[in-house]
């Protein structure tokens, strides 16, 4: 792998992986603890509408996705909070509508859409420098907002009703959180693709949760896990000549499952030990 580092695309891939890990470590932690996984899945899939819009208007699809995804996150949040539609119904509908918009736009765009596959499934080896700059800016925005509103996000995540009672502007903060998910999705699109984004939003955070009960530590650990898993997945895909995004996801998921299995075995062993102390 070290010899691969002489290539610019490989260096870009590692930078992109690290930037992705930062965004998904921080925001993924909220997604996991506030149980926003399905709404985040809907936001990430709806970003396809923005990719289509980008092709149609003739701007960078990632830039198209940035605006479109924020708009659809806000729309989704408002439908969830202000209508009587059950949350998961709203999520299912908006999930598909976003993708449908993308399909329509791509159909309307003359010629064929280059790289379409890489937006859907990611291609970390083909991240252009301009996208790395965009990812860097989005990471900075995410870190700044979470640093400024840490106490607010904690209150909304833990107990919305009690938050309302103590004067937390719950709805506004919830919408902002969904926008942060949207930003993270855009950061991740290039790395693992729209369809696999949800895995990077959840796996590193879920793994980190196994090791700590503290939200801040969970974010930091989750970033570390994200970096390690992305790099390891990238290396595996390079060695075995497999699709990078999918390899990263499968490796991450496997690590989490192994960790859960080990914890369970250890839990059982402990029970046995306390049940029969004289067994030795």
């Amino acid at each position, binding site marked *: 792998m070290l010899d691969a580092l002489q290539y610019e695309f490989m260096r870009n891939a590692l930078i992109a992986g690290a930037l992705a890990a930062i965004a998904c470590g921080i925001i993924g932690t909220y997604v996991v*603890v506030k*149980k926003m996984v399905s709404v985040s899945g809907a936001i990430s899939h709806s970003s396809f509408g923005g990719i289509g819009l980008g092709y149609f208007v003739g701007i960078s699809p990632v830039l198209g996705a940035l605006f479109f995804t924020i708009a659809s996150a806000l729309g989704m949040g408002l439908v969830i909070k202000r209508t009587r539609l059950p949350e998961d119904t709203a999520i299912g509908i908006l999930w598909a509508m976003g993708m449908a918009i993308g399909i329509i736009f791509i159909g309307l765009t003359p010629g064929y859409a280059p790289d379409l596959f890489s937006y859907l499934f990611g291609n970390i080896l083909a991240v252009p420098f301009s996208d790395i700059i965009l990812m860097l800016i989005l990471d900075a925005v995410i870190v700044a907002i979470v640093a*400024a*509103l840490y*106490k*607010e996000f*904690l*209150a909304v*995540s*833990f*107990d919305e*009703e*009690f*938050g*309302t*009672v*103590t*004067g*937390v*502007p719950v709805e506004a903060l919830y919408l902002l959180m969904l926008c942060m998910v949207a930003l993270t999705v855009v950061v991740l699109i290039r790395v693992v693709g729209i369809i696999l984004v949800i895995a990077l939003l959840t796996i590193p955070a879920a793994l980190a*949760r196994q090791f*700590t*009960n*503290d*939200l801040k530590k*969970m974010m930091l650990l989750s970033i570390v896990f994200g970096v390690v898993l992305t790099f390891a997945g990238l290396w595996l895909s390079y060695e075995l000549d497999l699709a990078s995004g999918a390899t990263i996801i499968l490796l991450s998921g496997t690590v989490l499952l192994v960790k859960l299995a080990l914890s369970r075995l250890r839990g059982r062993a402990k029970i046995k030990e306390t049940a029969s102390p004289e067994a030795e």
Partner: protein
Amino acid sequence: MPGKDVVKLEDVWVQYNGVPILEAINLPIEQDDFLGIIGPNGGGKTTLLKVILGLVTPTQGKVSILGKPPEKSRSKIGYVPQHNLFDREFPISVWEAVLMGRFGKAGLFRRYSSEDKKATQNALQTVGMLDYKSRQLGKLSGGELQRVFIARALVSEPKLLLLDEPTASVDPAMQTEFYEILERLKQQMAIVLVSHDISAISIYVDKIACLNRQLHYHGSKELTPEILEATYKCPVQMIAHGFVPHRVLKEHA
């Protein structure tokens, strides 16, 4: 003596999808009241608390908390929700959860001040949970959790404390301790405690109201024959299903 009432509900109705939840509620609560509201499940107890908190807007009627609409008085209300509803897996310590009660005082974009931290320390001390401050919230027992949630409500130094089914998952030995905490607190604030557990509530509160869509409240807990007659009209299901109300009678009539 106007202005002495902490809570004033006048002819409050709440309907949900056309179904009445609360009907014509009139309820004055004074600043040193310790009021127990009893009634069957589904009788509107939680809704009544949410009306007082301004989380539910009445279909008709007037709500005034400390002379203002509820949304404006929230910072003066401490609320202890039914705690079985929270996520025990949430990564948060006892300290962080209680500190959250100071949000209204700290405000947006500001970090919690040393004053907020001092109030948190005091509130945890009041409920005897200071030694547990670094514990993860979800790992506490029902009784410990209940005390932490009371601390979270107390930390904003409220004038009114609302408790929703506070003894639901607290074992009997802990309950006594729990009521003793409230006994001490009632000097400093009005307390409203909602429960379907009549026997526990009737020993400690000073006044009892009975709620089953309609509220029967007579500003005392002495259940004289006349009051009883009025009260009996309301909790029809409760009376029909058991002898529990009679126990209240025997102990306190």
